[in-house]
């Protein structure tokens, strides 16, 4: 069995868990691949995840906002799925009352 080689930027590597601790400033992403889940280190989190910086660990968290492809934080979407419109960090099939599309964008403004 060849232990999983940890990605560059890993400070503490484990044969079974992948990376346990990344170099400063990098984010750890807990990557699920079928039954395995290993830690990998990234400069920025992949699409669909947002980075949360903390003194002891920077971590990629899954973006869970409905109809959202990419997030700034747990409750703010930066990119809605195709055909949906962004308003105050959420995604809507059409702009809420009192708001309309900004020309040439998919964003609702008052």
């Amino acid at each position: 069995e060849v232990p999983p080689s940890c990605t560059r930027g890993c400070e503490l590597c484990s044969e079974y868990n992948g990376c346990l601790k990344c170099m400063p400033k990098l984010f750890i992403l807990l990557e699920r691949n079928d039954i395995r889940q290993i830690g990998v280190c990234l400069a920025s989190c992949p699409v669909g995840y947002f980075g949360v910086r903390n003194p002891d660990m920077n971590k990629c968290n899954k973006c869970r906002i409905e109809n959202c492809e990419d997030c700034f934080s747990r409750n703010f979407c930066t990119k809605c799925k195709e055909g949906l419109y962004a308003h105050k960090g959420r995604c809507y099939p059409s702009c809420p009352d009192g708001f309309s599309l900004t020309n040439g964008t998919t964003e609702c403004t008052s």
Partner: protein
Amino acid sequence: PRRTAAKGLRHGGCPSRCHCEADGARLRVDCSDLGLTALPANLSVFTSYLDLSMNSLAPLTAGALAEFRFLEELRLAGNGLTHIPEGAFSGLGGLKVLMLQNNQLQRVPCEALQNLRNLQSFRLDANHIHSAPPGCFHGLVSLRHLWLDDNALTEVPVQALAELSSLQAMTLALNKIRHIPDHAFANLSSLVVLHLHNNKIHSLGEKCFDGLRSLETLDLNYNSLLDFPFAIKALTNLKELSFHSNNIRSIPEKAFTGNPSLQMILFYDNPIKFVGKSAFQHLPELRMLSLNRASEITEFPDLTGTTSLESLTITRARLSSLPGTLCDHLTKLQVLDLSYNIIQDLPSFSSCRKIQKIDLHHNEILEVRAGTFQGLMELRSLDLSWNRVRSVEPHAFADLPLLSKLDLSSNALSSLPTAGLGGLTHLKLSGNGDLRELMSAEDFPKLRVMEMPYAFQCCAFVACERSAKLWDTEESSGRELQSRRDADIAHVLNRPEEDYSLEDLLLELEENPKSKQSVQCSPAPGPFRPCHHL
């Protein structure tokens, strides 16, 4: 090293060792982590996405990217850049995303930003930025998302931020900011999310949040605040407020009257002693309220107008009584934890129709009356341990169809009515020295975990005699299991050992009569606490 990969390219090749993908008529180029020291040659002018992260690029020069008019996303994270000269991004009028995080910048490269009129997301996190001079963000009229966390700012760059009226999300977390002055974010009328956690903020101007009329999320965790953040009164659209892990000692009366939309307030890990009785009034969207160790609370809070609470925790305070109208405002409550108080008398919880879990342990409750928990159709867990309960009225637990966990340990019971307790899986009665009655197993068909005052009370549940015979037949299968396991492991770990068919063993196990559904009853009867005399 990554081979040059290029999918469906029509507009110029892919730089050596980079990974390219067609994006309609444009090109997405990933040259990250290749040890590059300069922009790769042979970059297509139709490049819309360029990732140069985690290389060792020499400082950019003016006009270095001027020909890439279609560039929308440029990633330069992790390149050790110390400064970015004026004109470095000239020609990139269409740029929407610029990532400069994890470099060595000491200040915001203002001169390089002047013509980025379409920039929406700008990452400057994890640098060493200690200032952002006035006018710095002047050209960024479309900026929506700004990351300045994990830098060396000692104050909010008020004047620089004043130009970002379209900004919607910003983090200034993990800096060294000590004070937020009045009107710090006055022009940020579109800001929805503001993170200020992990700074050194010890004081807030009374009007420091004025102007943030769109703000919905404010994170002040892990700072040094001594006083309640009164400045939040300006945040009329606030939904999530967290200021846990600070040094705040009290929550004043009418603390959140300016924030009727609050859904979540987190303030644990503060030395809060006093909480105004009216502090949590008129918060119709609040789902959860948690107060721990607020030792000066002597009265249950007035929750008028706060009608959506699902979880209420007030522990380690000095509540001695509960209002009879407690459940009037709490019709949606699911979890109630009032442990570690000095409550003696319980009101009726019947109007808390949705309640599933009640923790009242470590109080001074004397009795459980018939009407106290009547009709709680959703109640699953009731913890009354460590009280002074002497009596439980006969039908106190009569109609609690989902009750599965009941803990009455460490009280003063001498008897327990079992009506309504047929669904229990966990029953704890230890620590009731006068409770010597025998419980019948038929009354508790679903029991799995049981703690009784005396071992003999467990005999009815662990079938002392029958199991003695049962063990003789199992003796042999135990040895076979041991050898079976070694054979299996050897087989999997490629160490030669004699094989063994498991099917025979399984059949042998199946034939044995299943012992009684195993109830874990303590204290377990044994040789010195026999069941025989029963």
